[in-house]
């Protein structure tokens, strides 16, 4: 918890309203998302009880398993959910666009749009992940055949759940996390996990939030009292009104999900959100292709090399996401300023035409002096970046305290982002009097370490994995 966010929580307590902790929206919100509110059966290993699903706020489709221990009924649920999900994701597998690669020497094609799935909370993501795990290895023939849509559902759910682990991905979004990224409430993080309460803090205030605390849960876990007093008797006598009861239980959450979408759409979008959605579309394109080519289901566990590669991707995605959010949003950047990893100041001197001719060829190396009142925790030699000129590097030459005022003069040497000539393009060098923010964060791409081919996995990591996992035998 950063002090800035903690202060926002304190302010929320005092004002009785959630406080913003972002000035722009940090995730892509789709024009046509698919919303899914799942409910699980208590005690069972991730057995579905019901779901409200759909892309039209006025027409949620209700899926119910009226006898949760009935295997056939459970697969009918998976079948229908599979049909809905596959029809939805396939909608985006038509229009394509060309993306230049290799500095414009070549192009590759990706889908112009991608699907976006919304669930209420992180537990909803876990539910989908496990439901994907329990369905993706099912076979359409053999001892326990299932409809073809079931393993397909499993693959897509696994795809979505896996992408949700990637920081900054917007393919599968959970509403609690999406709201928590933009607002701080006057309660603890544990209490924020309840979607109804969190949304009430933002839209109506503390009193309303307390009032909905004991309201219907957002799932996937049901309330034990509801299980014992309402659900159990209905299931026991196979009551025809069971679907309606479950619909009533989930409707408030369904309606809140669309309110969350509206709320987030009203925030101005961060300028780097589009870049991350581009990556999401790349990932979707690749997986849709894999499915269309009849590729194998995702393995139960990654091999050593695949796991290391995945960890590297997650790490680079996490740092990219952190930097992009800071560059997009002054309120996020403020956290780095508070921690001394960024500072704001005013340019007091500028030598925009300075040439360094000590090397083989003369190069343009302007210098600027920035005076700041903020704490500067960087060493000479450090490379800094300004969010307003992300392609330009500013190397710290020296730091000098200003007598009496307690300010600091930072002398910086600039390189890059000024055109190809020995004279800087107009506006590329900060002018005297300009206010700049400089940070140790950088958007520069860092290449990960090289990994061996899976067939060359060293013995220290278990040796080469066995060829493709045999299909898991179907179990009742």
């Amino acid at each position, binding site marked *: 918890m950063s002090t800035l966010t903690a202060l926002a929580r*304190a302010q929320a307590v005092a004002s009785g309203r959630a406080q913003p902790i972002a000035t722009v929206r940090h995730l892509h919100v789709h024009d046509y998302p698919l919303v899914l509110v799942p409910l699980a*059966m208590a*005690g069972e290993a*991730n057995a579905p009880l019901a779901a409200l699903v759909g892309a039209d706020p006025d027409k949620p489709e209700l899926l119910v398993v009226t006898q949760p221990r009935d295997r056939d009924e459970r697969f009918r649920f998976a079948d229908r959910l599979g049909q809905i999900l596959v029809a939805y994701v396939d909608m985006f597998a038509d229009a394509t666009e060309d993306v230049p690669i290799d500095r414009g020497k070549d192009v590759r094609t990706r889908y112009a749009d991608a699907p976006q799935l919304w669930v209420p909370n992180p537990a909803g993501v876990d539910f989908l992940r496990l439901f994907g*795990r329990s369905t993706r290895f099912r076979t359409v023939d053999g001892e326990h055949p299932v409809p073809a849509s079931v393993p397909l559902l499993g693959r897509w759910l696994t795809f979505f759940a896996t992408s949700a682990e990637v920081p900054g991905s917007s393919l599968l979004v959970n509403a609690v996390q999406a709201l928590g990224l933009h607002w701080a409430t006057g309660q603890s993080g*544990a*209490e924020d996990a309840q979607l109804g309460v969190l949304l009430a803090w933002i839209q109506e205030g503390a009193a309303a939030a307390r009032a909905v605390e004991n309201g219907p849960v957002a799932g996937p876990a*049901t309330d*034990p009292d509801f*299980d014992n007093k309402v659900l159990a008797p209905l299931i026991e006598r196979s009551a025809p009104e069971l679907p309606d009861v479950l619909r009533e239980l989930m409707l408030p959450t369904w309606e809140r999900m669309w309110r969350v979408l509206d709320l987030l759409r009203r925030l101005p979008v961060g300028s780097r959100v589009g870049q991350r959605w581009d990556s999401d579309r790349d990932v979707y394109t690749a997986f849709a292709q894999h499915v269309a080519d009849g590729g194998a289901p995702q393995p139960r566990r990654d091999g050593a090399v695949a796991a290391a590669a995945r960890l590297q991707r997650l790490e680079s995605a996490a740092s990219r996401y952190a930097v992009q959010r800071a560059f997009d949003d002054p309120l996020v950047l403020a956290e780095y300023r508070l921690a001394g990893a960024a500072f704001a100041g005013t340019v007091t001197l500028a030598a925009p035409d300075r040439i360094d001719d000590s090397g083989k060829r003369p190069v343009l190396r302007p210098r600027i002096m920035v005076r700041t009142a903020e704490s500067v925790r960087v060493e000479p030699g450090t490379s800094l970046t300004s969010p307003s000129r992300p392609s330009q590097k500013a190397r710290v030459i020296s730091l000098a305290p200003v007598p009496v005022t307690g300010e600091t003069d930072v002398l910086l040497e600039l390189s890059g982002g000024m055109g190809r000539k020995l004279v800087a393009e107009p506006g590329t060098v900060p002018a005297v009097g300009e206010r700049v923010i400089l940070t140790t964060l950088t958007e520069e791409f860092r290449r990960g370490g090289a990994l061996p081919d899976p067939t060359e996995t060293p013995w220290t990591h278990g040796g080469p994995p066995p060829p493709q996992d045999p299909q898991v035998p179907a179990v009742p």
Partner: protein
Amino acid sequence: MGRLDELRGGGKAKRHNARTIAALTGNPGCNRRAVLDAAGVDKLKLAETIGFPGSFGQSRFALSRGNAFEAMLKADDCELLRSVLGASDAAAYRDLGADTDDSLGDRHARTVALLSAASAALIDHPLLTLEVAGQTVYLEPDLVAYAHQGRLQVVEIKSFAIVDGQAESAKVSAAAIQAATYVLALRQLLERLGMDPLLVDHEIVLVCPENFAMRPVAVRLDVRKQLATLRRQLSRLSGVGEIIDALPAGVTFDLNRPASEIVAALGHVAPRYAPECLSTCELSTFCRHEASGTTGALGRPVREALGGIESVEEVLELASGTRTPTPEQEEAAALLRQALRLRSEALS
């Protein structure tokens, strides 16, 4: 123990179990919970009486699945359980849970006799004791097994699934703490019997359904860390007698008294509310209400990020500069002022 009965105000005392001990040790600084639990007060009813009802039930579906799983394991002379534990068929099975009368002492005596003889291999429904805050608490592990070379192992049967070798971490850690209390109780028992306490394995066996079927799988968990924590927390709890002695005469949590009187009585024992209490303590919503306006109610990370300052009001006054910080608060105040300045600048 007259004072404890007085505190409870008659009625049957709520007994501790492994779960309540785990909750107690999770927040050992909470005198309120320590006193109420020591006196055996029904906290759920207490919370209801003073107008903060909570829901701490367990779903029937979860219970019945748990029971079905256990029954399946123990069917046919524990056939499945033996195979998953790797215990031989020759190992005897003894169920000590046959008594229906309330004579816990008897069952405990039989447990002691059986353990000191070191003969039976699978001991079902044993009854152990543990000293908690100066009181003897009866504990009931799922099963104690003599594994190879006469070592004792605690077996916990849980109905949550282990999928591809992974289970929900919160459930696993709760099971580990629970099992650690049994290990501790067993070790103390052996010590009393003059046997080597280290005969009790620090590895416990967790038996859970594997993947999505009811097929069991056994996993060994090292609970040494939980044991160490438990010992430390239990030693801190031993002071509850002193807290109770320090209470003014006449203080009681008798549920037949008017709510206002009970609330006043609660005021005599200091709570230590943290948001984590909400999932483990029946009285938590009352304590949360009491703690409103404190930074602690927002969670420990928030409190720490705000420089450990107690109240929200004080935080905001220090941030805006309307309150002069004490010498110890100087550093926190400077950070808060800077944070407020940055927030205001970015939001303007």
